[in-house]
Structures are given as structure tokens and as C-alpha cells.
């Protein structure tokens, strides 16, 4: 039985321009100890999906359809109180722009302790501080920096502190939303290595969300590619990288400059993403696709199995 089973998840927002579906019919499963990465460009719905899994959608957003089955229970049918018990204790999140996720007027050690105290009534304050010390060792921050304030930390250290906070209640699942985007490559590399080790050590499941496909591939066994609210390709990273089938995945891969191999011309994707208030009837990528079929514009595409777990939402594949 998978740890997390997401079925037909559809999340809508009410905006002043109308109602839209930011995530539209996404299905996936995640086993214990596995990692799954979602990649896509801004506005594809990846962050919204992460927030929906945490039950942290903004007031104008709501889950319209679907199920989020975590450890055999549907999170969407739980009361707010029940959800509060799962959140952070079982499912934790590393937020985008972690540097701003810390409270600037509270000592970092105290903030990490607070995450534990709020979710565990039996824990005393002193016990919590001992645990914070262990967590700081784990993520590689010197213990004597516990009494510092966030502004005294470097970007990488803040990121580490936020990871420590996510680990505080020993969750089973961590959702990491662009955890290294604001960091320099050397620091990013160190943080990613750290996360990989922690994952092994605690048998964590990780959902990794990023716009950078190379980071996602580096971290995760399986990759889901998202476009305009839909999952369009899914599979093991080798398959998605080496033999991508969806035209969007192909286009995305050929728009990244590489460090090795022959210098080929980058091929930008023409056009813009569709307006989700009035989504196209057929395939959402159709207008930007280099080889659309005759029915692509009018009929919604269907999932096609390529090999094993590898599949794509495209009627031409």
C-alpha cells in the first residue's frame, strides 16, 4: 500500500478574472522512502498542488475534486483539528524562499523548538531544546548558533534551519517546494546532498517541486512534468530524460543550456501558456506544439502508456 495516493486532484481558485483550475485531475502514488519530483514552469500548478497536500491553500482556493489518501485515510474528509494533527507531525513542508520563512525577531533555536512544542503536548521546553541540538547536528549547523537570530545566518544556514524545522516532528513525508532556488550552486549542492542523506537515514518520502529539471532529476527517482495545471508526463527519471515523449517535456529539455556535449542551438518554446480561466478544449500545449495532430485542438488528450511506469498525456505519442 502506498504512503500517499492522490486521485484526480483538482484545485480551483476564484480570482477577479473568474474561476480557474490551477491543478486539474492529477493522479500519482508515492511509496514510503521514495522520492517524486514535480517540474514545470511558473504557473503550472506545482506549488498549488504542494499547498493542497498540506491543506494550506489560500482563502480563495479550494480542492474541487479528488482524494488525497495518506496512510489509508482521505485528508480531504478530515476535520481541521484532525488535519492539524497530521500536518507537520506526519507531513512537513520546506517552503519556497526559506529565508523568509523564519521569524526575524525570534532566535532560530527557539523557532525550531516551537515547531515541536506546538505539535507535541507531552514535550517539555528543556527536552525540546535538547532535541533542537540534535537536529542542528543533523543538518550541519554548529550548536552555538542556536541563540542567533535569522539575520545573523547566511542563506544556506537559514535553509538548513528550515530543514531542521521540517524534520522536528519526524514526519514521514516532506514536501520541498523549490528549497534551493535562492542559493548559490555550491551551497545548493551541499543542501541537496544533506537532504539525500537524511532521506536515507529516516526512510523519508519526499515530494520535490522545482522549475529546474536537473535538480529534480538529481534528487528523485520518478519525475512528473506539469503544464498548465495538468500532469503531462510521468515516469522514472531515466525514461523522462533520455526518451521524453510529450512535446512539452522535449521542448523543456531542449531549452536548457548544458555544460557538456556539442553546443546546439537552444530551442525556445514559442507562445505563452494558456489562460486557465478559459482553458482550451483540447490539449493545453497544442498552440505551442511543433507537430499537433488534427484532433489535438478539439479533443482532450488521453494517457498513453509508453513502457512500465512511463506514461504521457498526449494523443500523438
Amino acid at each position: 500500500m502506498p504512503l500517499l495516493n492522490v486521485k484526480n486532484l483538482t484545485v480551483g481558485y476564484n480570482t477577479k478574472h473568474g474561476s480557474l483550475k490551477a491543478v486539474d485531475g492529477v493522479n500519482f502514488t508515492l511509496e514510503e522512502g521514495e522520492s517524486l519530483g514535480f517540474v514545470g514552469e511558473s504557473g503550472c500548478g506545482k506549488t498549488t498542488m504542494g499547498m493542497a497536500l498540506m491543506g494550506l491553500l489560500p482563502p480563495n482556493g479550494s480542492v474541487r475534486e479528488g482524494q488525497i489518501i495518506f496512510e489509508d485515510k482521505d485528508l480531504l474528509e478530515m476535520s481541521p483539528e484532525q488535519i492539524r494533527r497530521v500536518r507537520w507531525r506526519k507531513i512537513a513542508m520546506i517552503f519556497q524562499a526559506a529565508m523568509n520563512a523564519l521569524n526575524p525577531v525570534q532566535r532560530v533555536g527557539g523557532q525550531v523548538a516551537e515547531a515541536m512544542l506546538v505539535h507535541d503536548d507531552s514535550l517539555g521546553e528543556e527536552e525540546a531544546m535538547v532535541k533542537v541540538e540534535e537536529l542542528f547536528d543533523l543538518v550541519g549547523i554548529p550548536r552555538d548558533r542556536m541563540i542567533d537570530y535569522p539575520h545573523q545566518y547566511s542563506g544556506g544556514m537559514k535553509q538548513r534551519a528550515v530543514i531542521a524545522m521540517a524534520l522536528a516532528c519526524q514526519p514521514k513525508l516532506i514536501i520541498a517546494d523549490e528549497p534551493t532556488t535562492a542559493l548559490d550552486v555550491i551551497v545548493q549542492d551541499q543542501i541537496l546532498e544533506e537532504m539525500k542523506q537524511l532521506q536515507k537515514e529516516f526512510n523519508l518520502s519526499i515530494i520535490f517541486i522545482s522549475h529546474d529539471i536537473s535538480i529534480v532529476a538529481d534528487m528523485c527517482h520518478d519525475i512528473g512534468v506539469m503544464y498548465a495545471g495538468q500532469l503531462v508526463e510521468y515516469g522514472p527519471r531515466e525514461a523522462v530524460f533520455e526518451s521524453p515523449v510529450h512535446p512539452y517535456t522535449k521542448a523543456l529539455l531542449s531549452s536548457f543550456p548544458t555544460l557538456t556535449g556539442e553546443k546546439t542551438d537552444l530551442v525556445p518554446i514559442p507562445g505563452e501558456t494558456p489562460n486557465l480561466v478559459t482553458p482550451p478544449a483540447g490539449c493545453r500545449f497544442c498552440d505551442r506544439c511543433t507537430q499537433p495532430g488534427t484532433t489535438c485542438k478539439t479533443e482532450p488528450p488521453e494517457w498513453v502508456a509508453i513502457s512500465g511506469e512511463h506514461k504521457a498525456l498526449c494523443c500523438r505519442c
Partner: protein
Amino acid sequence: MNPKSNQIVRIEDVRKVYKAKGSFFGARKKDVVALDGVSLTIPRGEIFGLVGESGSGKTTLGRLLIGLEETNSGKLFLDEEEVTHLRGKELKRFRRKVQMIFQDPYQSLNPQRSVFDTVSEPLKIHKLGLGSDKYEKVRQALQAVGLAPPDDYLHRYPHRLSGGQRQRVAIARAMILNPEFVIADEPTSMLDASISAQIFNILLKMRTDFDVTMLFITHSLAAARYLCDRIAVIYRGNLMEIGPGEEVIGNPMHPYTKALLDAIPKFGQKEVMKRYGTLLSREREDANGSGCAFFSRCKVADEGQCSMTKPVLNERSKGHLAACFF
């Protein structure tokens, strides 16, 4: 006017220090050395890449070159003419020849001005082009950056443009005076990958169409490899390595460049990449600041000369220089 020289930009031993303000009670903080004796030349028609992490001084160098900041010491030359401390009319004349494309197109365009106002403003400032002539020039500039048909965009305001379109407007504004030298400071760091590729290709087209020389400032070695003829790697205000793009990435000489390459996610590269392992896992604490800037994090450094003397750039193979004793 000077005959056109081959070296359009020359920087000689430039130093820039930002004075730190001490607090009223506390001790004075240490000054920040943003550039610590940087020298380089850029020949006409070249796209020169300056690669570094945040705080390395790469943006400061760009700002010095366009005259937004003043150097503490050292000299800057454009077309063999010294431009280190220009004032008044001369500065204005200089700014006709040098333009900048900023990082964030959401902030670099005035939201209250239409595309036409923004792109034509340099013409107005330099009193070039009148009336209909001005319209024609703006149309051409928009066409050149792929905003076509230009009449669809002329009277739009930035809020009705996507990030990629805004950055193109910024490029059109920079190119409309037909400058000799353009500084592009991380022009794609706020944009998605597919849009970045569009901007890269437009910059390459600008070079062929307008024969412009470019300084491309970036944190991404891969982007620099794609765009640039030569690459310089900068670390804490010091140039560590300069060379032809392929050389610096395929055959890096400096331990810092190697550490940067090591840190890039490897999955999906077309070939297997070597691991250099030049980064110390724990920073050295005994660095006294008089030696190599990378000493505290360098695995190959030796305690003697690397900590005492600052290495200078020396040539390893034709046109490929590294500032390292090893």
C-alpha cells in the same frame, strides 16, 4: 574621434570598496571589498561572460562600467578613451555608447509608461530622431527583439506584458541608440527556462545584427557556455580564471572553477562529467586575508604561499589564464 580600436573595453586594476557603516555603539564593521584589483579587456564584437556567485562582485563590475558607481582606484577605458571619472556632457556622450539590461524586468520598466515611451526615451534624452522618425525607430527596435507586429505593443503598458516580453522591451530600449557596448546583468534569472532561451537567442542575434560587444553577467556556467566567447570566473572580487568558454568549462584550471562545476547537478548532461573534489568540506579558519581569496575553502592550497601571497593571473595555454600557484 579616435580610430576604432580592437579592444573596446579595458579595465586596469580596478578596486571598489564599500564602506560599512558602524553602528552608533558597536565597533566599526569591516569594509566590503567588492572588487580587488580586476583587470581585463574585451575585444570588439565579443560576448564576454562574467560568472560568479552572489556577492562575488560581478554586478559591481557591471555598474562601474556603465558609470553607476565610481571606482576607488584603477582605470576604465572605452575605445581607448579613459572613462573612469566622467562628468556632465562627456558622461552623457559616454552613455550613448554603453547601455545596460537589468536583471528584473518587473522592476526595470516604469509601470506608468507605455512601451513606446520606454523604448523611445533614450532618443528623447539624446535628442535623436523627431516625430514620425522616432516611431519608425521604435518599431524597428521592437521588431528586432521579436515583438511583432510592433504596432500591437507600442501602446501597451508593462502590466499587460509577460516577463519575457518585458525583458525584450528592456533589450529594445538598450539597443535603440545602437550602442557599442551592452552590459546584460543576469537578464534571465527571473524568467522560466523556455523564455530564457528566447532571450539568449535574441542577445546572440543582437551581436550579429548590430555588431555590439557584450558583457554577460551570470551565475550559470551553462548559460555562459552557450552565449559567450570567453568566460571569466570571479570570486570575492578577484578574477580566478579567464579563457575561451569551452576551455574554462571543459578544462578548468582553477580549483574554484572546478568546485563550481562539481556543484552543478549532473543528471541529464550529455556526457559524464569528471569530479574534481577541490572544495574543502570545512572552511579553514586561519585565513588571514592576505593570500588567495579561495584559500579558506580550497583543498589543494598549501598553508605557506597560498595563505600569504595573492596569486596573479598567469597564462596556462593560449588565452587561458588562472590565478593559482598550482
